[in-house]
């Protein structure tokens, strides 16, 4: 149990967990000292989620021991874990959409709560750690980024001794991430241990004291990430040499495919953001990136582009010069537009339906999966299997439900489904959110290849590294307005951060609320 004479706060030894047919964890060792920020690195299916669920008491290990401050014990349930002082921020949020921020947080806490006091505490904690939140807003009106802030604040309110964070920065701006790193470093100085799961290797190098690397359910190594390069970390994680996505030459940009001309949309949601006179063009063969902090009109823009919300004035959106603003999703798909929405569970896919059915969901028209008005199940199955094969989706079979896939694998499936319909324009929201480095680089390469083959690509993302890695031009959305687009070579990450503007400060939530009502 000893680690150079110091008793670790949490120590795992020989943890093994088998699922039918898969050994998810095979003899894993992990030691986290107090005040240590410890990275857990691994690809999709490496066993990170399983291990974390065991630590958090959601799953029970088949064998192996868990020690807390040197004392072996059993963590029977998440409540037991919380009682010990383990807090967890999940990648998929567990929030009640119809309730307010305060009510959601109260639900996660033991005993009765004084709501007014709790709301005040929420504001205090969220300001202290730079995580703006309005306690009385309903969760369904919040963006992914804002929902994550609730989860973080919920954990911090309970004074955790060990904080588990599953890819927390994927929805934050660089400035916000930097603020959070400061928070985490401060927490670590106060003696809190942090288990940090991320695929952003630079981040891990900058933040973490130690890293444990898993691959294929096995423990590979423990190392000091500050002494490794991003490349060497990635190689330990994947086991092969990484190839960076090949960046496309800017010169082969073709004619304008999609043009938004003074695109405006009034949000039907009282806390939504109105889109205000957006102008942009996406040309064939280029990747156009839209950056911005969550909750600045991305949700509304994506709805307007996908046809889930149609425009009053059809001329505000033109495809190859023809107005399409009045068309619904099916009609737009018929014109060879494909979409990857922000939320892959429940929006991009039906969690309880099989991959076969989910392949049918958006592709039945373009792939002719209906014959004589009936679903051609053989052809649909072939299509689903094609996606799984071409996009390396790791699943036991296409009859399994979409909800049973890990986040990264489901994302590969959805991206694959949309790309294999051979779109001439593809609109992708957060293509690699919560996806590990291996899958992310595969998705990036697929996007780049698609553009190289003449498709126009629009990527909405909050991950600036990602936008810089793949896009040719970039614009920033803030409070429902879009900045002028800039060539990728002419703009730096810092400049974009500034364009995101006043929304990075702590009081931004108030500004957003004000803008929505204006």
């Amino acid at each position: 149990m000893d680690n150079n004479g110091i008793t670790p706060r949490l120590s795992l030894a020989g943890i093994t967990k088998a699922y039918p047919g898969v050994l998810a964890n095979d003899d894993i060792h992990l030691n986290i000292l107090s005040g240590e920020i410890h990275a857990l690195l691994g690809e999709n299916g490496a066993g990170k989620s399983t291990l974390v669920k065991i630590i958090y008491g959601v799953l029970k290990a088949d064998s192996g021991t868990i020690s807390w401050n040197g004392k072996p014990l059993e963590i029977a349930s998440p409540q037991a874990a919380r009682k010990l002082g383990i807090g967890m921020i999940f990648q998929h949020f567990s929030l009640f959409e119809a309730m307010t921020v305060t009510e959601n947080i109260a639900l996660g806490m033991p005993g009765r709560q004084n709501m007014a006091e709790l709301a005040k505490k929420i504001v205090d904690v969220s300001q202290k750690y730079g995580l703006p939140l309005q306690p009385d807003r309903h969760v369904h009106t919040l963006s992914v980024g804002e929902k994550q802030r609730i989860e973080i604040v919920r954990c911090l309110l309970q004074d955790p001794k060990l904080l588990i964070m599953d890819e927390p920065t994927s929805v934050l701006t660089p400035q916000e991430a930097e603020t959070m790193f400061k928070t985490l470093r401060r927490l670590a100085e106060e003696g809190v241990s942090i288990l940090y799961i991320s695929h952003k290797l630079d981040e891990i190098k900058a933040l973490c004291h130690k890293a444990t690397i898993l691959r294929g359910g096995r423990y590979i190594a423990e190392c000091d990430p500050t002494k490794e390069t991003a490349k060497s970390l990635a190689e330990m994680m994947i086991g092969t040499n990484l190839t960076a996505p090949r960046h496309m030459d800017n010169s082969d940009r073709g004619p304008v495919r999609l043009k938004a001309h003074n695109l405006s949309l009034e949000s039907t949601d009282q806390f939504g953001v109105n889109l205000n006179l957006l102008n942009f063009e996406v040309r064939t063969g280029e990747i156009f990136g839209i950056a911005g902090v969550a909750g600045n009109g991305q949700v509304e823009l994506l709805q307007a582009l996908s046809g889930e919300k149609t425009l009053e004035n059809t001329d505000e959106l033109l495809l190859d010069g023809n107005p399409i603003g009045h068309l619904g999703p099916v009609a737009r798909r018929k014109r060879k537009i494909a979409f990857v929405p922000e939320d892959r569970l429940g929006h991009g896919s039906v969690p309880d339906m099989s991959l076969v059915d989910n392949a049918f969901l958006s592709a039945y028209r373009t792939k002719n999966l209906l014959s004589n008005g009936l679903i051609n199940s053989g052809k649909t199955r072939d299509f689903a299997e094609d996606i799984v094969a071409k996009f390396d989706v790791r699943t036991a079979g296409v009859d399994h439900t979409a909800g049973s896939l890990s986040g990264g694998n489901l994302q590969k499936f959805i991206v694959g489904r949309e790309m294999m319909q051979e779109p001439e324009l593809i609109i992708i929201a957060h293509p690699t959110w919560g996806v590990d480095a291996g899958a992310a680089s595969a998705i990036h390469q697929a996007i780049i290849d698609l553009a190289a083959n003449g498709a126009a690509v629009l990527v909405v993302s909050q991950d600036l590294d990602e936008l810089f890695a793949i896009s040719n031009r970039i614009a920033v959305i803030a409070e429902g307005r879009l900045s002028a687009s800039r060539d990728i070579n002419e703009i730096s990450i810092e400049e974009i951060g500034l364009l995101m503007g006043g929304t990075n400060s702590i009081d931004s939530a108030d500004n957003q609320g004000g803008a929505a009502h204006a």
Partner: protein
Amino acid sequence: MLRIEKRPEPAKSMVYLTPVLALFLTVASSTILFSVLGVSPIEALDNFFVEPVKDAYGVSELLVKATPLILCAIGLSVGFRANVWNIGAEGQLTMGAIFGGGVFIYLYDVDSVFLLPLMIVMGAVGGALWGAIPAFFKTKFNANEILTSLMLVYVALLLLSLLVHGPWRDPDGFNFPESRTFSQSATMPILWEGTRLHFGWILALLAALGAWLMLAKTLVGFQVKVIGAAPLAGSYAGFSQKKIIWFSLLLAGGLAGIAGVSEVSGPIGQILPSISPGYGFTAIIVAFLGRLHPVGIILAGILMALTYLGGETAQINLGLPIAVTGVFQGMVLFFLLACDVLVNYRFRFKSYGKAVS
């Protein structure tokens, strides 16, 4: 302290086992009920489940009673899958009987092979019309269809009563609140000589087959399932939620309407102030007991029909009140829902991590 939490992986096989388990629990608790009522439980259960189907006629009666249950439940199950909670099948059934039966009232002297088909079509139209009202209010004003469809049941029942007591009363009927007896060409053909088993049974089987085909193989069936399971994914795919609300309410109404017309032109043979012992409500139990699946619904429909027959037998032979039937049906639904909760959730005693020595 006891608390309930979601099971991480509910057992798939239990989904099909729970109806059987629910039935078993119903039988077990009804023995207590019978003992309290002063009847030997064995005799009572024998009267409920064995006596009614001892002969061929009993079996045919079972199918006669199952017919309207299956027709209504098939329609309801499609709506339930799409999260459209239509509980007004009883009213839609009544409107079907009014529209379908009304055709005969006004064309009573017509002797044509087209009379019955016209009545069936009008029955479906009447039921669908009654289903259209909640659909309109739901899609236009977001009015809760549970309330609107339920309230319309009582409107339909009163309308039926008004018609039978007033304009549709048999002119040669000594002022009894009954319509003319249906003529041969307005009556459902008998399938089995010497019994009351009629063409409606075939319609029920066709409805089940059609619903199965629709759900498994057609785009609209796929839309029903997607919108029920993940409405946002439905709108992402371009499926219209309003269209599905209209579709499922019209379909359920139409099928319930056919059930209504097949009752008045089948076993009843005329329009009476009361034409259904709550088939439309029992169909809700049938739909859930059949796991919203057409094949399951046929089986569940037959089972629930048996409780109607058994209730009558027990009333005649043992003097048990007819309310026992309702109690029986209620218990089945109660235990089914309870079992479903236990399949998806588990009880846990609150305990925190303890050090193991």
